[in-house]
């Protein structure tokens, strides 16, 4: 019962903070470009506006156009509930196992790809095929790198990995741990459509990946798509920061522990988001055909991490 309450609290906190994370990332970028920026609260205003608009749907489109945004949103909320962000507690019926989380992420990925195909536009199909190519390259690396971290713990349950790493500082700074975290950062950037794999603020249809799949969605549908993909960023970035700095998470309903957990999550996420946004200013999008090389590189790091954790224990 307490575990369920904690997980509900985690979903509420993560959902509330997600637009702020996106707002901070956009603001950091705007400031570094010499702009004023639209303020860190702009994503909240965007979502509110989208929810007030009519969801216009193309003639000849199917139920997918309505269902896929909801599937993406629900899958993202599930991932947010399972990944240890605020709490290390988990609902006993649904283990927050690495393989469960990756499978649920894939449900959202497939829903997005189907959405891109649904309206039958050329750009949507192109986006879907690129999206699936990246997904196929990303998932093995996510599995491998978290697997490397799970070997010393002896369990692929994410919350157990975080607890074990938090209890023993020497586990955090091992060669295997560092390699795995670096590999994870690269694949998280690819999975959430950030530079150098995809440019979230592009207007050029030919270079789009994520944006081109959602070109045909409007109003409420678009709001769910935006929130769903932002939540994926929160969940994956939160997983990375909690694996790299596994401290501050709550395991009980104590108010002080909860407060500390929420505040540390907020600080960790916003700082990590700010660093990513600042780094993106120095980067250009790489050619699509170079993306597999980048992701193969991160797979090699993950593979080395697994080897190192077998050798070094």
């Amino acid at each position, binding site marked *: 019962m307490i575990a369920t309450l904690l997980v509900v609290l985690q979903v509420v906190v993560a959902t509330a903070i997600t637009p702020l994370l996106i707002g901070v990332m956009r603001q950091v970028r705007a400031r570094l470009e010499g702009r004023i920026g639209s303020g860190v609260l702009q994503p909240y205003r965007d979502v509110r*506006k989208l929810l007030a608009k009519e969801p216009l749907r193309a003639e000849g489109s199917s139920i997918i156009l309505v269902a896929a945004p909801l599937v993406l949103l629900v899958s993202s909320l599930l991932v947010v509930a399972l990944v240890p962000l605020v709490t290390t507690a988990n609902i006993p019926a649904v283990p927050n196992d690495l393989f469960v989380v990756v499978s649920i992420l894939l449900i959202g990925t497939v829903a997005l790809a189907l959405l891109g195909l649904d309206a039958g536009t050329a750009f949507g199909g192109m986006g879907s095929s690129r999206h699936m190519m990246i997904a196929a390259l990303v998932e093995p690396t996510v599995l491998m790198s978290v697997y490397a971290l799970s070997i010393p713990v002896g369990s692929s349950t994410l919350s157990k990995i975080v607890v074990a790493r938090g209890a023993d500082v020497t586990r955090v700074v091992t060669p295997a741990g560092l390699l795995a975290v670096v590999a994870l950062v690269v694949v998280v950037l690819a999975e959430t459509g950030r530079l150098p794999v995809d440019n979230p603020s592009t207007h050029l249809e030919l270079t789009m990946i994520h944006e081109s799949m959602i070109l045909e969605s409007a109003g409420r549908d678009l709001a769910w798509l935006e929130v769903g993909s932002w939540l994926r960023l929160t969940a994956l970035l939160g997983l990375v920061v909690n694996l790299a700095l596994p401290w501050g998470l709550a395991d009980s309903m104590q108010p002080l522990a909860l407060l500390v957990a929420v505040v540390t999550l907020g600080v960790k996420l916003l700082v990590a988001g700010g660093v990513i946004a600042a780094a993106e200013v120095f980067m250009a999008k790489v050619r699509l055909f170079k993306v597999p090389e980048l992701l193969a590189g991160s797979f090699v790091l993950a593979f080395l991490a697994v080897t190192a954790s077998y050798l070094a224990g």
Partner: protein
Amino acid sequence: MNPFRLLKLIARTGRIAEPAPAAPVADTEHPIPKALRGSVQVRHVDTGSCNGCEIEIGAAFGGVYDVERYGARLVASPRHADVLAVTGVVTHNMVEPLLRTVEATPRPRLVVAIGDCAHDCGLFAGAYGVAGPVSDFVDVDLEVPGCPPRPEAIVEALRRVTGR
């Protein structure tokens, strides 16, 4: 580019955006839909412009005038848009695409005619390829005069919509 050089450039350049002018007075006769307050996505439609207005729109969304600070953003699809920024005279070939773009934009939506050509065909009035000004084909909510209009005027029109 060498990241350290870029970092030095960023530090030396600082803020390039100009200070914000006073917010325009709201037009009580033609109220802007409440839903669009604070956040406006703009889709640009060129129906036969000489590209003068495009340069000024580019400047309005660039770093110096930075209309994004008021909550306006350019988007790639009319489905994501709240405002259609139409530039140029409407040529015969662009009548149908213009009507379809307006149709593809979810309500509440606004059409902003930018430049003298969009208003009354300007320099190109009476030319053989011209079908007419924008208001002959779709309802125009706001007009930005000028040939081409100054970026400040475009920023002001968009600020009327965002109310910021």
